């Protein structure tokens, strides 16, 4: 039993006070302390004991008395004890300020400051006072002042243990609040150094001091050393909660199964040691949430919320509660807790999870604006979080902002190309505006699901099949529908093993005995509810493929299993209508109306059928109005039908009155306009208004409207609208643009009707008729007759075209016999056509009667008579032409003969000329022969000269020169006649040249008349030498000799007169 002994003043006695039996009223003990002037440290001991026992008021009373003015008077010389009391009081107020609310907090901080100021006035250098100040500044988050206070102590005593701890914690907190990472690390490093100094200064310090080292190492990223330090703390103090929780967090941060398990184990131990540890409570709540124990989650979380004021920890606790309620489906409570969790943190970066949950709750309540803001907060922290992006895309879609929704989902597909959900969302958003892209996205989703091995939803396959169908790719559509439906009874219908017999074909559409019989035979007929619609689509596909047997079987199977599926009755009615079985069609629609007599589609369809009957067309209006009323005026289809009905009524023949006509048209226009106001892009309403303008002959406006509708319809795969093509062609016809009208009709036939619509062919024929293209008109009508053999109107028109053709031919000024003959045959055919028609005219159901036919027959007969006359005239004309041609032919023959005779005369003349020329040639040849003979005679003389010149050479040199020149001439003549003397020629060659030069010199002093002659002769001789030098082969040489001979003969007469004179001159010389 602990006690304190208060000495009695003036004596050696003491009063023993048991600390566990302190009086309830502090005044009693204060009286004793004052009366005996007990040492102040005893006051402090007693006060501390009161504090430990939780008696705060008594603690405060003693300390305040202990620091009152009287104490300053009586204990003036006792400084340390007075400072200790003031410091204790200051620490007390610091503690209260830390846990109190805002207003009280400031009051306590002020009180603490005053206590420390009074202590400083007693002794300014007391370290404990500065440490107290530092602690106060830390609590007030004034870290700089705190640092200054601790430094004052450390400057005096670098080993002051509390100051080291204080300064180290200040550095750590500075690092936590520092924004720059590098500076923060510096702070942590400084903190670590100080903790190390503290450990060195006090080697046996409490275990908790090593927590500082551990936390600093953790912040510096030295995980292993941090773990080591935490484990050291636990080694010294196995129940240290902070170390245990810190190690648990480090285990959990590995995010591995083993680490998480170890972490949770440590959290559980921490919870067992101290049940109010907030961090452990939060993590345990998180754990039990995932195990589905919501009650435990609530208990743990409530405890966590009450045991901590830390914002982030409270946020975690609220988040765990919110998740628990959210997963249980309590949306409102979850929303409140998510909001509370969000409000506990200052920015999303601290804890982003509750923002996602809050966004989900707000989205559930259709608060799109707030939900969008919440998810945007998540994206601030995680810009590529696909869950948030998809939620945002969904919000945009709900708000009608499809463009933003599409853009957002596209972003998701870029971030995560394997997110099939995003592709499906995109496909569904785009199916209206961009069906091609929608198709691509849906296919991508299907491929992703296939690769992932997941089951492909039937809705996805149905959608893909639908788009293929609308695109006209019926085989692809069938493939998709088949895949969507999978196995079932319908497979046997598809492959024809059931229901393909002739007997089944004759079964009535409304007869269900076929299926009943199958069931009795043991065939199971199972049709899951989620496959009915796809089966309906498949049947509709068979309709388009013209396989109405399978389509009918599918529809009747649906009716057999789900008798209330109204649209199947309507489809069967449509099939009956296609087969022209109007009665059955009406009966089937009646069956549909029995199920729901207000079904707008059934009423509209019934009205359409009645509109075609002369007796029931008035009733159609009632049904259209019922359909409109049943949908409360929102059904544009029935409004359009009413508009069409009014237009139809305006054109009825029996009430031909302008007043009625105008009234109906105005009503029709009103209805069409109302539809356009609701749906600006309704093509049928615009087409209807165009028709009304056309009826008023306002062609330009009507054409503009039809053109726009035509363009809109061309760009769509969901609407097939041949009517606007026909209407546009009508406008061209009305305006006289027959070529364009023909083009439009033909394009419409080819595009929509496979060239098999008799009505449009009739329109086309009339266009040709108006354009006076009779043959084209007839051809078109004949094709129409092939398509509709029982349409007598077409036959009548054929007769008319024949008649027109014949009449136009007969009106020509000039006609060929063939044309007239063709006209006759055409007229005969026309008469036959009209005669045949007169037999059928008794029905009076066509546009013509017997009298009209008789008129046409008479007219044709008249034309025929005229044609025959024209034929005879034409034949006579032809005969005359033939005779004329015969005469012309004979004349031509005569001219031909005359021309030949003249040619013969010319030929004879030419022959005579030729003969004369031949004679001349022979004479010349004879002359040449005489010349040859003369040449032979003259050849002997040069030989003599040669011999003479040889003798002279032997006699003298001077004379040699003159004689050499003469020899040269002789040599030339010799060569011309005798080839064997070639060798002589070569020997004499150089001498000949010398002689020529000598001859020139000798003439210089001689007569001027002789010089030119010598020069000419020299020139001629020179030429001969050149020719002779060119000789080569012996045979060719002979030929050349002949040429040379002939040429020389030509030259010889010219040279002959010259040579004798030259010879004489030589001789004279």
């Amino acid at each position, binding site marked *: 039993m602990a006690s304190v002994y208060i000495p009695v003043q003036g004596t050696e006695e003491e009063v023993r006070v048991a600390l566990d039996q302190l009086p309830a009223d502090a005044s009693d003990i204060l009286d004793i302390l004052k009366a005996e002037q007990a040492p102040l440290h005893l006051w402090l001991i007693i006060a501390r004991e009161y504090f430990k026992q939780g008696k705060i008021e008594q603690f405060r009373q003693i300390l305040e008395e202990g620091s009152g003015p009287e104490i300053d008077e009586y204990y003036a010389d006792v400084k340390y004890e007075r400072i200790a009391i003031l410091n204790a009081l200051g620490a007390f107020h610091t503690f209260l300020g830390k846990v109190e609310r805002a207003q009280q907090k400031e009051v306590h901080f002020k009180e603490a400051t005053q206590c420390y100021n009074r202590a400083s006035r007693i002794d300014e250098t007391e370290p404990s006072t500065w440490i107290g100040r530092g602690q106060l500044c830390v609590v007030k988050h004034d870290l700089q002042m705190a640092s200054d206070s601790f430094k004052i102590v450390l400057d005096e005593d670098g080993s002051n243990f509390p100051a080291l701890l204080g300064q180290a914690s200040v550095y750590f*907190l500075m690092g936590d609040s520092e924004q720059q990472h590098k500076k923060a690390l510096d702070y942590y490093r400084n903190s670590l150094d100080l903790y190390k100094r503290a450990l060195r200064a006090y080697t046996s310090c409490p275990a908790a001091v090593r927590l500082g080292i551990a936390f600093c190492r953790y912040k510096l990223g030295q995980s292993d050393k941090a773990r080591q330090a935490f484990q050291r703390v636990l080694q010294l103090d196995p129940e240290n909660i902070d170390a245990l929780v810190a190690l648990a967090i480090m285990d959990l941060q590995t995010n591995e199964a083993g680490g998480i398990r170890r972490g949770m184990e440590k959290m559980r131990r921490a919870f067992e040691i101290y049940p109010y540890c907030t961090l452990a409570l939060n993590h345990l709540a998180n754990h039990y949430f995932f195990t589905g124990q919501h009650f435990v989650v609530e208990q743990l979380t409530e405890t966590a919320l009450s045991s901590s004021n830390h914002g982030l920890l409270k946020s975690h606790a609220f988040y765990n509660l919110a998740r628990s309620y959210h997963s249980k489906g309590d949306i409102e409570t979850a929303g409140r807790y998510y909001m509370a969790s969000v409000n506990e943190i200052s920015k999303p970066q601290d804890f982003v999870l509750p923002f996602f949950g809050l966004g989900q709750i707000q989205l559930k309540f259709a608060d799109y604006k707030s939900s969008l803001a919440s998810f945007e907060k998540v994206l601030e922290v995680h810009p590529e979080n696909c869950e948030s992006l998809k939620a945002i895309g969904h919000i945009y879609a709900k708000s009608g902002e499809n463009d933003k929704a599409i853009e957002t989902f596209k972003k998701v597909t870029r971030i995560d190309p394997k997110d099939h959900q995003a592709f499906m969302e995109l496909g*569904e958003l785009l199916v209206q505006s961009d069906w091609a892209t929608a198709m691509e996205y849906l296919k991508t989703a299907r491929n992703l699901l296939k690769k992932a091995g997941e089951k492909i939803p039937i809705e996805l396959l149905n959608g893909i099949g639908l788009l293929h169908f609308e695109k*006209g790719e019926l085989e692809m559509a069938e493939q998709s529908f088949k895949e969507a439906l999978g196995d079932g009874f319908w497979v046997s219908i598809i492959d024809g093993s059931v229901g393909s017999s002739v007997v089944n074909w004759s079964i009535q559409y409304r007869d269900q005995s076929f299926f009943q019989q199958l069931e009795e035979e043991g065939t199971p007929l199972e049709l899951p509810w989620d496959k009915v619609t796809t089966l309906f689509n498949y049947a509709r596909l068979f309709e388009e493929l013209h396989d109405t047997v399978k389509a009918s079987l599918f529809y009747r199977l649906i009716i057999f299993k789900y008798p209330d599926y109204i649209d199947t009755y309507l489809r069967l009615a449509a099939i009956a209508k296609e087969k022209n079985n109007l009665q059955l069609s009406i009966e089937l629609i009646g069956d549909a109306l029995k199920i729901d007599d207000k079904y707008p589609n059934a009423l509209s369809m019934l009205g359409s059928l009645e509109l075609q009957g002369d007796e029931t067309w008035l009733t159609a209006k009632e049904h259209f109005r019922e359909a409109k009323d049943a949908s409360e005026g929102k059904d544009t289809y029935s409004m359009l039908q009413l508009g069409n009905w009014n237009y139809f009524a305006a054109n009825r023949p029996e009430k031909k009155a302008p007043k009625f006509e105008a009234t109906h048209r105005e009503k029709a226009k009103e209805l069409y306009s109302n539809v356009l106001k609701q749906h600006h892009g309704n093509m049928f309403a615009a087409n209807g208004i165009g028709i009304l303008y056309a009826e008023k002959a306002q062609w330009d406006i009507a054409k503009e409207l039809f053109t726009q509708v035509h363009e809109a319809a061309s760009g769509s795969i969901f609407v097939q609208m041949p009517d606007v093509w026909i209407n546009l062609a009508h406008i061209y016809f009305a305006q006289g643009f027959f070529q364009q009208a023909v083009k439009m009709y033909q394009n419409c036939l080819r595009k929509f009707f496979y060239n098999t619509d008799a009505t449009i062919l009739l329109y086309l024929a009339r266009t040709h008729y108006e354009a006076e293209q009779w043959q084209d008109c007839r051809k078109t009508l004949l094709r129409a007759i092939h398509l509709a053999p029982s349409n007598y109107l077409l036959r009548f028109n054929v007769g008319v075209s024949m008649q027109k053709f014949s009449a136009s031919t007969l009106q020509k000024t000039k006609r060929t016999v063939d044309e007239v003959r063709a006209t006759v045959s055409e007229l005969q055919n026309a008469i036959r056509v009209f005669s045949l028609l007169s037999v059928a005219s008794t029905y009076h159901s066509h546009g013509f009667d017997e009298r009209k036919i008789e008129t046409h027959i008479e007219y044709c007969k008249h034309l025929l008579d005229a044609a025959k006359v024209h034929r005879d005239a034409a034949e006579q004309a032809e005969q005359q032409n033939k005779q004329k041609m015969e005469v012309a032919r004979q004349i031509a023959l005569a001219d031909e003969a005359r021309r030949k005779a003249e040619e013969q005369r010319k030929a004879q003349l030419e022959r005579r000329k030729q003969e004369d020329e031949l004679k001349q040639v022979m004479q010349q040849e004879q002359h040449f022969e005489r010349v040859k003979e003369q040449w032979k005679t003259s050849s002997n003389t040069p030989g003599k000269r040669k011999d003479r010149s040889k003798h002279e050479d032997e006699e003298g040199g001077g004379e040699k020169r003159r004689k050499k020149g003469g020899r040269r001439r002789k040599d030339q003549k010799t060569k011309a006649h005798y080839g064997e003397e070639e060798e002589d020629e070569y020997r004499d060659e150089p001498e000949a040249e010398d002689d020529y030069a000598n001859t020139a010199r000798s003439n210089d002093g001689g007569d001027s008349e002789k010089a030119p002659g010598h020069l000419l002769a020299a020139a001629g001789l020179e030429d001969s030498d050149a020719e002779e030098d060119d000789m080569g082969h012996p045979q060719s040489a002979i030929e050349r000799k002949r040429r040379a001979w002939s040429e020389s003969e030509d030259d010889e007469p010219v040279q002959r007169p010259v040579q004798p004179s030259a010879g004489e001159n030589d001789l004279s010389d």
Partner: protein
Amino acid sequence: MMRQSQATVLQKTQQVRAAQQPQSRHHQQPSGGSRPAVTATRPAAAPNAERFENRLKKPTTFLCKHKFRNELPDPSSQLKWLPLNKDKDRYTKYRITSLEKNYIPKMIVPEDLGIPLDLLDMSVYNTPPVQPPMAPEDEELLRDDEVLTPVKKDGIRKKERPTDKGMSWLVKTQYISPLSTDAAKMSITEKQAKERRESREGRNTFLENINDREKQIKAIEDSFRAAKSRPVHQTKRGMEAEWVLPLLPDFDRYDDQFVMVNFDGDPTADSEQYNKLERSERDECESRAVMKSFLVNGSDPAKQEKFLAYMVPSPHELSKDLDDETEDIQYSWLREYHWEVRGDDKDDPTTYLVTFDDDGAKYLPLPTKLVLQKKKAKEGRSGDEIEHFPVPSRITVSRTAHGGMMEHGESSSMHENLKRQRSSVDDDLYDHPKHSRVEDMDQYSGDEYSD
């Protein structure tokens, strides 16, 4: 244009049925023949001008009536679209998201780092007088495998221009930038504080700079071996030492702080009283001078002026023994100085004071240099900024048990003008110069006398 048509298609499709999606292909409609009755009646009617101009309604032999069409598709002919994303709550019901899977819990550190400093009971943290040896586990906690490169924080140094006795007419260049001065002061202040803390711990910065523990041990052993070897001349290896004295720190004075003070002139030159004294007597007075720093609050509260006061004992007081605690010594206030601190890096001092005795040489680091300028010599300042305060008539210095704290004497004017504030610099400047005289009149080094 294509977008326009697509929009048109979109609206067109919406109008037929909200529940029913895209329409089917419009198949062949039944061919509508012309009405025979109409044609039969038409020839009988008298044609009017308007009708005749309308080619569509002109009666002709060719029987054909051009009828405009607006056939609507069968209302049930469209394929049915099944919604792909049927789950309305797919974005609102709770799911474990990637955010939760990837969430890493944060380490939340208690504000006091789990170390309570309870001033109510400080006994827990009272260090025992005898420290037990540190546990091996704790030593391991203190060991750092990685060592950061030490960063020296050098302030801006100013090299002192050498001055000779005979060139006192040269005035030193004054660098007037306040930034560098403040930076230098701050830098030195931090270094001083760091040095003091380290010296009190007994740590050796040099040893700590070695990176590895093993290397540190080896370096220490090498230094011991080097100390035992006989010294040799650095360049002339042939020379032998005549005698060897050990160079040791001056252990008696090592804990004292010494400052080398540079005066800009003879401090007692301005005083007529001291100028009359003989040289030896004057030197004796100067050797006993006391310098103390003061801080003055002028008219501008934000601006404080600090200066250093030079006080010399009165001539007639020389016979008194300063160590006698019972006597009060009277001083004369002679001059005020502006002071500027320069010096070496405290962690690596390069200036030492060496004293030679018979048994060894003793050294002291002398890292701090104090450069003084006469306070009134600064003419560059504005006259308004200079405040003159009355000089105390008399100052008495007495030694007390708490240390060399100067108490105010009889002068009452001191209280009004002077306010002492604690600062780390003040302690450095409080010196008791010893009786020594440097031959150079421009440099005077004070030495604190021992008790």
